[in-house]
């Protein structure tokens, strides 16, 4: 393989990885933007999404098959379920804690994350589940660069989801309400916005996106595991910080940037794939030290 081929192959790999990161990072950044909560459970919602999608796929596969129709159907159902799960978590665990000290709410989020991951572990006995699909391995071949159709469809659907979200945030009433609440919650309440409902909606959308990403990851990697949410939660947070936490565009950009950085990072001499995670956490720490506002974030007054 020539170095140009390697470049294009890693570009493709990075884009796929990056679109997963971006989808998960969006949920992080939306929740953080609106109630300043670092939702540790977000990575676990992604994991739950993969498992719920797996469950639905095995239910509908007799009817719709294990190809794109079945996958699409189970992905939509999984998005709805995970969205509702996110709303439930917000209602039960986070809403009573919003006025509590920051340490308490962080520990609450951590506890929710543990409940989800250990709950799934108890249900699956900690085993890997094979995410069976019959999508085949055909793809586009350009010289030595090979991209499967599955990869292309996944990237395109991630892009479609993000575009929809982008229009929703910028063009609808509820999107406007979300942006307003992120700026000043009390003023919104005075203006007659149903703040609680908009916060619940934010959780719904953010969680649904994580659920979609989970199903897509199941399709892409072919196996799912109760611990798969942990590392991607960390990575998605890194992506959200790279882009500037609280910024929707930042999360998309940060996700893609992190995916590409990782893909190309494994090509640097001495940075093999076993050091990939160290590489991205290193980026996170350097970024937080030198530019905590990220690429697109606004400088904000520190609130403890």
């Amino acid at each position: 393989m020539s170095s140009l081929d390697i470049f294009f192959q890693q570009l493709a790999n990075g884009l796929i990885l990056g679109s997963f990161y971006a989808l998960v990072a969006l949920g992080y950044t939306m929740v953080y933007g609106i109630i300043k909560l670092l939702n540790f459970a977000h990575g676990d919602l992604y994991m739950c999404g993969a498992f719920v999608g797996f469950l639905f796929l095995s239910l509908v596969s007799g009817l719709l098959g294990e190809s794109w129709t079945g996958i699409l159907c189970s992905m939509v159902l999984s998005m709805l379920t995970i969205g509702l799960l996110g709303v439930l978590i917000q209602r039960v665990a986070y809403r009573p804690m919003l006025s509590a000290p920051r340490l308490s709410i962080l520990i609450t989020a951590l506890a929710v994350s543990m409940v989800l991951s250990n709950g799934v572990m108890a249900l699956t006995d900690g085993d890997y589940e094979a995410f069976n699909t019959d999508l085949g391995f055909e793809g586009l071949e350009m010289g030595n660069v090979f991209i499967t159709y599955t990869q292309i469809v996944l990237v395109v659907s991630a892009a479609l989801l993000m575009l929809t979200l982008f229009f929703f945030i910028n063009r609808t009433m509820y999107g406007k309400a979300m942006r307003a609440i992120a700026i000043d919650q009390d003023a919104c309440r005075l203006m007659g916005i149903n703040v609680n409902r908009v916060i619940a909606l934010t959780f719904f959308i953010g969680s649904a996106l994580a659920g979609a990403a989970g199903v897509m990851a199941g399709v892409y990697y072919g196996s799912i595991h109760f611990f798969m949410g942990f590392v991607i939660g960390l990575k998605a947070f890194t992506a959200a910080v790279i882009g500037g936490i609280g910024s929707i565009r930042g999360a998309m950009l940060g996700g893609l940037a992190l995916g590409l950085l990782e893909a190309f990072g494994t090509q640097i001499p001495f940075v093999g794939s076993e050091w990939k995670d160290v590489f991205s956490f290193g980026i996170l720490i350097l970024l937080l030290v030198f530019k905590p506002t990220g690429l697109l974030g606004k400088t904000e007054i520190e609130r403890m």
Partner: protein
Amino acid sequence: MAEQTQSPRGSKPIVQSVARWLAPQRNRIIVLAVLAVVAMVLPLAANNYMLEVLSNAWFYVVLCLGLNIVVGYAGLLDLGYAAFFAVGAYTTGILTSQFGVNFWLTIPVAVVCSMAAGIIIGGPTLRLRSDYLAIVTLGFGEIVRICARNLEITGGAGGLIGIERPHLFGLHLNQAIHFYYVFLALAVLACFCSYRLQHSRLGRAWQYVREDEDAAEAMGINRVGAKLYAYVIGAVFGGVAGCFFAAKMTAISPETFMFQQSVLILVGVVLGGMGKIPGVIIGAFALVLFPEVFREIGSMRMLVFAVVMLVIILYRPEGIWPAKRS
């Protein structure tokens, strides 16, 4: 906040009456003396299995007290505490097994190493908001574990084996009972240090920073400095505990220091009551004894802990140990 001070009075009358009885100094000393005698005499009546479990409990007491300095006293959420524990264990492991250094001489080296780790992690990040810090410590915990797994000097994924057990005044520490007393002594030392620190000038500074960072700074407290002290001292507790852990187990592997380990230690701190020494001790014991008593749900213990932690933080944020009535 009003809810916190009222709820225990109505809902937990037994706990409250115990707390009232414990209020005078004299009664506390009696209880402490009884507990000390029990802790000293217990191993004479215990079998090896019980000794193993109890030494493990004392060991977790040390770790939880160390994390308590960071989380309970200074109010910083550290999700990578196992990293310091790993630094101590690997320092001892590498020095004794590969360089033949005497175990006792590795302790000061481990203290220096864990202090350095604390400064490296804390130095640049303690200026950040508290929730960023939580995730950075998580990332650091993972980095340390991945390094331990991939480096040659740490023995890779297989870890280190054949760490020599130490001698103390000519006595070769190789029985379960020896390590029971070693960990008991370590736990007592940790309690003493925690107690002294809590009531020191630095302890009051931590409390102030925890309650109101801006006001503390306005009063002339160096808030980053105070946090860094908490971080470094907590790291030393973890590092020293790690040394003895390596000596007791004679083998360590990177999987001992996974994220779950950090979370487990945090559960101990939250369960008993952040910032309170008796609470943290109870929490650590609950952590170790619970899965032993309920063997059949052993595999689900993390789920049970998670649910308990969620309930505690939502309904009784001050933990099991009764709060002082203000």
